[in-house]
């Protein structure tokens, strides 16, 4: 009996004390949680420093995707209308976020590091159609001095689809 009352008092003291600690709540729409560096959020298609798209339309991401969420259609390109350094480029690139399981295998499979899962986790949508993100929604914006693709380039200046790459670091 006395022990029970003691334990009860300890419990009451615990709740009373925690009422004076700072709440752990993150006030979501105003304050956003800092995600980890390796967080797998929404995909982004990356560009090179000169503004060309990294994606060469090889469809390896679509092949490896366990949920069959990615659809890629590649097209030929010329030096007059150049999208990517390779022979071909992705004329269609769609990810269905109703299917995607955010496993990151597409990122692992990509030979040019074109597709990256970034930290955007605000992926709500109201219709099935709006769950499908098209290429222009996924592609990064061009940075200041560069023009949007396609570029007109000197013939023969790009002959290599897959760039020289270093081991990835965090």
């Amino acid at each position, binding site marked *: 009996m006395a022990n029970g009352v003691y334990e*009860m008092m300890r419990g*009451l003291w615990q*709740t*009373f004390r*925690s*009422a004076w600690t*700072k*709440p752990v*709540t993150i*006030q979501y729409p105003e304050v956003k949680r800092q995600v980890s560096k390796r967080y797998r959020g929404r995909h982004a298609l990356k560009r090179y420093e000169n503004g060309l798209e990294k994606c060469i339309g090889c469809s390896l991401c679509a092949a490896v995707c366990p949920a069959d969420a990615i659809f890629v259609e590649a097209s030929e390109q010329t030096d007059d209308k150049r999208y990517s350094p390779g022979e071909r480029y992705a004329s269609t690139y769609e990810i269905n976020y109703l299917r995607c399981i955010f496993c990151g295998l597409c990122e692992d499979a990509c030979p040019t590091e074109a597709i990256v899962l970034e930290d955007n986790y605000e992926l709500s949508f109201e219709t099935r159609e709006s769950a499908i993100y098209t290429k222009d929604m996924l592609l990064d914006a061009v940075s200041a001095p560069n023009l949007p693709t396609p570029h007109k380039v000197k013939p023969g200046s790009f002959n290599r689809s897959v760039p020289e790459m270093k081991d990835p670091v965090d």
Partner: protein
Amino acid sequence: MVIDSSMIWEWVIKSVAILLFCTVGFAYTTLYERKVLARMQVRWGPNRAGPRGILQPVADGIKLIFKEELIPAKADKLIFVLAPVITVIPALIITGVVPWGPDITLGGRTIHLYLANINVAVLYIMSITSISVYGITLAGWSSNNKYATLGGLRSTAQMISYELALGLAFVGPILLAGSMSLQDIVAAQAKSVPFILLQPLGAVIYMIAVIAEVNRAPFDMPEAEQELTAGYHTEYSGMKFALFFMAEYIKMIAVSTIGATLFLGGYLGPFLNVAPWLGPVYLIGKVAILLYGLIWLRATLPRIRYDRLMAFGWKVLFPLALLNVILTAAGITLFGGK
């Protein structure tokens, strides 16, 4: 006492004031509870509707008004509709006998800050609280639902068991003041000390018994979510559910008010003879402290098992309350009461 038309107006205004205090108090007690519970669980609690969430009760009310009202096909319809009313009306009228302050003079007439000064106020409280158990039992029975029936039955058994201890806890202040009128009990505390100092055991027994009486955690057997979905109000929705909710919170306020009056000196406090309007402020402050205690217990203690609830009520609380009565009576005989 002369009964004239202004007297009747005074009564009407005071009744409306009590009803408003109860209903607005109900709304803000829910917010108070959610805020305090949240802080004890290291959260912020509602803070979106209005500054710091003060419009949350309004938002809840609007939501409940627009919800669908469902009556189960095989329910006893008349009793099903009547039960929430039977539960909420007693809760609203309990506080009618509680004084909120000393007499004040306004425009040449003395106004008593209470609705009724009846000489058996404590008995009145006991009988009115017993009526509201009918509402809960009938709600459980008329729903024609096994969970609701079990909740109603538990409620009956629990209230009968704890009402004994509650009644005996009332006896201490009655003996000390020599009266059943709450006005006299407060006046007796003005002459000596708040009765919690003379009746610590009585005050503890009172608080435990009223938690069982208003069906709050850790004694929320009749509405145990995990076992009985929602107990006696499983089948209720919309405003009928809101009435049960209202009854529970108004009863919380009522028992806190009565507890403050019996044991904490009611409206008494410093500077009362200079500014009589401080009386209601002191009373509300004491009620807020007692409500904090009720919420604090809910935040801390898990629900106790049904057989242990019964064993505790009959084997621990009831004998302790009897002992308290005997000790009080002996003390008054030896040292002189009043």
